């Protein structure tokens, strides 16, 4: 479970345990803070009737804890919420929510459900610390680049067909293995391809890539893709599948091309997990600036997918096959951007009175260090130099 991974603490890091029954009394009754829709505990707090519950002594002590007390406001009504769903490969479905507010400086608070239905709250001292933990816990440790067979700006419909092709390669390979068949050509009947895709989508079976993508990528239902003929053509153009006739039966079949075989073998042998990310920022306007992500690490690459909405309402995907350092840089870039959006002041109406003096503390620019390779100044929380690409700090 993701909660177990949150317990792998470094020196000076904190994790707090809360029970489900403590949430209402803690936030509504004792701390007296109002929750927002972005609270990681929103479902519980929404259903809580004030004054109807009691606080365990352990949680009551937390309110006096100088490390925990400043986090209460952010946990109740954060400015930034990152929903992360996990599952697929050999991992069961799980969810983690990460929240932040300028009032808790650059700290990110990660919340996950424990085996007994309670919650763990882990405090990360900034986007860099969170990304470092995420990479250590979940990313594929590949350092070499591999071919990326999926071009950026591909229609979501074509991308779903590609995921299904990878699953079909795995399925056919497993069937051949069960039949002690290592000589026949790896193929799938044309007539089976679409019906099996429909069954896969309905199954929600996280052992397969396509259902996993649909399950862990947040709110995919609002971009229902349309599969068009050109999407099938893309499978041929990109060397995933090609049409053929079965030499013996004359049946129309699909043979796996270079891309279909390569990704099929990769996911069959070494896919272990997938994660979906959705970012929400309080207030209007910032939402469309934040991406929705799907990441599927394997032994060869960290498959990174960014969903991009077009003004016409369509959805394209940008897929990259990242090395470990590349994914680390990209995740940090996205998290820092998300944090900057939540930290920026909300637009004020022209005639609005001046804000009160006691507002949130200003965020400070990150400290800078010298890159040991090129000598340029880089942010201290960057792990790789933006000038020369060299590693700045130890992994």
């Amino acid at each position, binding site marked *: 479970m993701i909660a177990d991974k949150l317990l792998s603490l470094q020196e000076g890091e904190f994790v707090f345990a809360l029970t489900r029954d403590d949430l209402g009394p803690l936030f509504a009754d004792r701390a007296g803070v109002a929750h927002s829709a972005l609270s990681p505990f929103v479902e519980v707090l929404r259903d809580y009737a004030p004054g109807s519950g009691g606080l365990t002594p352990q949680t009551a002590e937390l309110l006096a804890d100088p490390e925990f007390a400043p986090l209460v406001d952010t946990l109740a009504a954060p400015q930034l919420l990152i929903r992360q769903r996990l599952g697929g490969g050999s991992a069961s479905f799980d969810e983690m929510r990460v929240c932040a507010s300028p009032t808790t400086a650059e700290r990110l608070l990660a919340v996950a459900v424990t085996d007994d239905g309670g919650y763990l709250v882990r405090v990360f001292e900034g986007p860099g610390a969170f990304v470092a933990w995420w990479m250590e816990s979940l990313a594929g440790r590949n350092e070499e680049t*591999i071919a990326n067979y999926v071009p950026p700006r591909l229609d979501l419909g074509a991308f779903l067909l590609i995921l299904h092709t990878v699953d079909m390669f795995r399925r056919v390979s497993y069937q051949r293995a069960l039949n002690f068949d290592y000589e026949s050509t790896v193929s799938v009947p044309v007539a089976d391809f679409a019906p099996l895709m429909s069954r896969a989508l309905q199954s929600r079976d996280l052992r397969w890539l396509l259902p996993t993508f649909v399950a862990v990528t947040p709110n995919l239902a609002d971009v229902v893709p349309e599969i068009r003929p050109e999407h099938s053509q893309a499978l041929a153009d990109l*060397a995933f599948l090609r049409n053929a006739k079965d030499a013996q039966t004359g049946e129309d079949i699909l043979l796996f091309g270079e891309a279909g075989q390569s990704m099929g073998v990769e996911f069959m042998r070494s896919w272990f997990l997938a994660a979906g990310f959705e970012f929400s920022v309080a207030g209007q306007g910032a939402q469309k600036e934040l991406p929705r992500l799907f990441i599927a690490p394997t032994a060869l690459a960290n498959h990174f997918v960014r969903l991009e909405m077009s003004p016409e309402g369509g959805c394209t995907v940008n897929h990259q096959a990242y090395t470990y350092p590349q994914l680390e840089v990209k995740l940090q870039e996205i998290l820092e951007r998300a944090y900057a959006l939540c930290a920026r002041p909300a637009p004020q109406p022209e005639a609005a009175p001046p804000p009160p003096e006691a507002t949130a503390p200003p965020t400070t620019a990150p400290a800078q260090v010298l890159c040991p390779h090129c000598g340029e100044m880089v942010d201290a929380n960057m792990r790789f130099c933006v000038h020369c690409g060299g590693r700045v700090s130890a992994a």
Partner: protein
Amino acid sequence: MQHSFTPEERQALLDAYFAALAERRRLGEQALAASAGQDEAAPVETDEALEVSLAALEQEMERLWMTYAGGVPHVGLSRCPFTGEVFTHSLDYYGLDGLWWHYEAAARPEEEYLPTFFALDGALALSEPLDNTPLLVATGPEIPFVLPRLLQYTQIKAVLSSFGVGHHQAYFIVYYADPMLWEIDRVNEWGADYYRYVDIEGALQVDAYLDDERDFDLEAWIRAGQLLWIAPGDAEFQLRGHLTDCPYLNLPGSRNPVYLQNGERWEGENLDDAWVDANSLAEGAWSAEDQQALERALKLWEEGNL
């Protein structure tokens, strides 16, 4: 010129430019002849009218050069493998006789670079008949290649595409970086002796660098995901990362840089050696004494005494 020039407009501009160039050379030789045989210590007497004519010609050539540069078409050539955005660049695809191809003073308009754009390189498979231009044209090797110096960085990828230039086949090798690398030399724009880029502050910069190590084994780079390709004639610029049916592998043609001038073609690394010197110069190896020696030699050459 606000719009891209038509073939007729382009030809008229080039005709006027080359006529002015020929006239300037003629007047230059006349001025040289007039000063020949004079005492080195005495001031060179020149015909004032000749100087006025030369200055007017220079001005006219500059005007034609600027008009031409403003009319070079911008065309989609490639696609960024990180963002999926189409890369457009100026290109005189009518022929190699255009000033866009003038190696020593390439006439190119301002470009709108993608944030991930790193460098533009290229190769060109020449076909007969060769373009007859009085200007030096450097088309690079005849077959596509990559620069290992750049692709050693995992954050740099190259995209190979092709385009017709006159009756020749051009190969574009566009390098992209994400995140951007600021501290390493890029490479001269294909066919030019400089490269342009937008620096970290957002300002346009011009610099120069040429590699002499090229790798023509594209298969290994495609397999490693560092090189992608676009099928010839693909108006959608679909990026492909597979080897199957890749039309750019094992092409016949010279691996040496190719040069054209006055209808003549030659190839080799001789100019490369000069380029290496130019790189050394850029690094500060060229001293004031070297400059004075060069100026003395040029003066002697002009006077026919070398």
